[in-house]
């Protein structure tokens, strides 16, 4: 039963991204052509709200349900991995129109061919894991 809250979070996540059309290939294409504010509005207002929520969290030292302070672990320092990895991700995101959340959500909307993208993404992650020690980070 302790997982039910995570199921609920996932359901809300799926509903929001479908209802806002952020799972749509067309919206991603339109965003990268700078022809609509819609996606920038979603990401921008999410980040602004998120920044405010995290500032309030730190200021008032909110605790999580496990009793510790609410916080996010810092990302490791680096440059190459973020810019190269990010660019490769962006190429795939614009081509397939799906990032790692929407690809599952789209299965729920009945587009089963997206499963090919999911399997290919799992393969891509696997290849990264195998090559990891040989790549600059």
């Amino acid at each position: 039963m302790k997982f039910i809250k995570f199921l609920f979070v996932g359901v809300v996540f799926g509903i929001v991204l479908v209802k806002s059309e952020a799972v749509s290939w067309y919206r991603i294409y339109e965003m990268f052509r700078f022809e609509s504010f819609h996606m920038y509005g979603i990401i921008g207002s999410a980040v602004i709200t998120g920044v405010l929520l995290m500032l309030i969290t730190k200021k008032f030292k909110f605790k999580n349900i496990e009793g510790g302070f609410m916080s996010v672990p810092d990302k490791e320092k680096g440059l190459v991995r973020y810019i190269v990895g990010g660019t490769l991700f962006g190429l795939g995101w614009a081509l397939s129109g799906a990032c790692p959340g929407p690809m599952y959500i789209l299965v729920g909307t009945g587009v089963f061919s997206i499963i090919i993208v999911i399997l290919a993404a799992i393969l891509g992650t696997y290849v990264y894991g195998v090559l990891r020690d040989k790549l600059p980070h």
Partner: protein
Amino acid sequence: MDYILQPWPWYVAGPMMALIMFTLIYFGKTFGMSSNLRTFCTIAGAGKKAKFFDFDWKAQRWNLTVVLGAVIGGFIAHFLLSVPTDMDLNPVTVESLSQYGFENVGKSLLPAELYSWDAVLSLKGLSILIIGGFLVGFGTRYAGGCTSGHAITGLSNLQVPSLIAVIGFFLGGLIMIHLLFPLIFG
């Protein structure tokens, strides 16, 4: 009820995404959907091949539950909370796609030119989905996160690595749409 059935504006969706991130932090977790791809590799036995996958995947069951919920949420939103609506895309966007031979632009979430079974069963269509998915999976793990982990969680916490990753996301997207699309679809 009509407000729910119509597409939701950005100023509803964006803050709700931040609340989802906040809720997961409240539960002692971090919002990051791409981590599940690594978990799937581990479940499939990749830990024997590479140390990167040698971890206790059961600690990630909560995240797999979010994935399951996301599938259910996609179903609910699409089949129960929507009326058939054409997407309100920029006419310039629609025109540019029709020049690439895309028809019925914005009448479904995904273009039939890429995601219909006819497209999938062609060499070009299948290659697009496999290459696109592979780049997403490889790139997100190399960059240590995706749109949820970097663009929303990382930027909300003012993390410089996430800003660099998001700049990379856009660099890649712009290269794909402006330089490679004319070669792929032109």
